[in-house]
């Protein structure tokens, strides 16, 4: 029975112990997740990310015990998720279209639906870009090899961008240069990183990385459908009370101030739709 007394080298003992602790650590952390009594899941357009995170912080301070989970993505992707039965309480879209599709399918509480902000579409380039653009037409210059927009199928910013390019009769000519992104912030990132020569994002997005990108020109209002953000409570939610409180905060003066800080314009044409 000599092996029984054989001392395990100290290094190996520490190593195996830390390995054990490493694999057990998730169980130790598990406890801290279960503190909040109520949770609220908000699916919101990618462009709302920073503004909504601020609003979420305020909400959690005002309503202790409610934990907010944000799910940011292209509005079209979020719509599909809700259609497929994702457990979402609030939906905020960057386009009337996706909200109305859900309303048509009876998946949102119609009386909770509110338009809360507007935005505009801008053409941007990297701040250190060597290419000089002054207008949308300049995208036809030979130096412009790649232009990023959101995927028009799922990203509202991409659909607005398509409308703008079609308005200026550039869509067919630029088709080979377009790079589609999964959401508007990816467009912003492509431009900031210099992977593409230009991109089209919301005016509010430019404020997120003001040092890295600059606006060439803002698309005129008549070149695309108005960029209006609607928000509503999703049907079948178990958290309707906090969901409605969240929407109330978004449309309150306080919410408007936060949205304004991040470059959104207030929605003025009446309270409902």
């Amino acid at each position, binding site marked *: 029975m000599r092996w029984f007394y054989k001392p395990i080298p100290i290094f190996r003992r520490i190593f195996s112990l830390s390995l054990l602790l490493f694999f057990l650590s998730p169980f130790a952390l598990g406890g801290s997740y279960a503190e909040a009594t109520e949770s609220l899941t908000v699916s919101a357009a990618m462009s709302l990310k920073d503004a909504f995170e601020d609003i979420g912080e305020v909400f959690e301070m005002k309503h202790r015990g409610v934990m907010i989970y944000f799910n940011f993505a292209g509005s079209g992707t979020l719509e599909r998720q809700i259609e497929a039965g994702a457990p979402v309480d609030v939906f905020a879209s960057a386009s009337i279209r996706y909200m109305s599709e859900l309303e048509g399918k009876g998946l949102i509480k119609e009386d909770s639906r509110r338009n809360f902000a507007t935005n505009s579409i801008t053409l941007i380039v990297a701040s250190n870009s060597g290419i000089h653009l002054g207008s949308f037409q300049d995208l036809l210059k030979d130096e412009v090899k790649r232009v990023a927009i959101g*995927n028009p*199928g799922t990203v509202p910013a991409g659909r607005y961008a398509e409308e703008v390019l079609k308005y200026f009769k550039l869509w067919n000519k630029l088709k080979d240069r*377009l*790079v*589609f992104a999964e959401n508007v912030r990816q467009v912003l990132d492509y431009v900031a990183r210099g992977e*593409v020569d230009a991109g089209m994002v919301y005016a509010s997005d430019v404020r997120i990385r003001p040092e890295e990108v600059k606006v060439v020109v803002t698309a005129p209002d008549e070149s695309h459908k108005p960029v209006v953000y609607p928000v509503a409570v999703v049907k079948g939610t178990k958290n309707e009370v906090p969901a409605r409180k969240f929407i109330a905060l978004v449309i309150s003066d306080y919410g408007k101030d936060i949205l304004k800080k991040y470059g959104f314009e207030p929605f003025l044409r009446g309270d409902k739709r």
Partner: protein
Amino acid sequence: MSNPVFFPLRLSFQVASVATLLVMLVGGLIAYLLARKNFKGRTLLDILITLPLVLPSTVTGYYLIILFGRNGFVGSFVYDWTGWSIMFTWYAAVLASFVVALPLMIKTTRAAIESVDENLINASYSLGHSELETAVKVILPLSKKGMLAGVVLSFARALGEFGATLMIAGNIPGRTDTMPLAIYSLANSGEWSSANFMVLFLTLISGFFLYITNRYGMRTV
């Protein structure tokens, strides 16, 4: 507008074929070095090359952006010299598939080379064959099966590459949307009927590859 189903099909095979060809050449060489040579940094090379096998392909994609992006360590040189960047081209899809398929080729080939009888190799040397001749005439024929398994598995893996491809090749309809990317887009926009064909096709062909590797007793992985 290119066909939303047959373009991805064709592109996927194009990408997987080119990537597999590169994997065969580079992977075969590295496998030989790892199996037969003892050199400084061998273990490090082994680990570096095997990493994509266990890392999420998004992490692989992240590294590829850092290296080959327009402002990447390698990519910026290429861009300054040629004005060309691999990002968002189908070559980027090849690069991604190459990096993730390489370890599969190396693992199987290395095992096959290491299982070649050392006596046969020594006999070849003692009969005056050079290292190259021995490698081509003795080691290669004897480890053929394992290498073939590596090629088949690499091709299947290259065909199915998603994460890194999405990150460096983008998902551009008609240019860089390989089958896995096209399926992702179709599912995201709810066009299930178009996705069905590709999903079924990929399942069948991958099953077929596994059948081949089993049928010919190439169970090296």
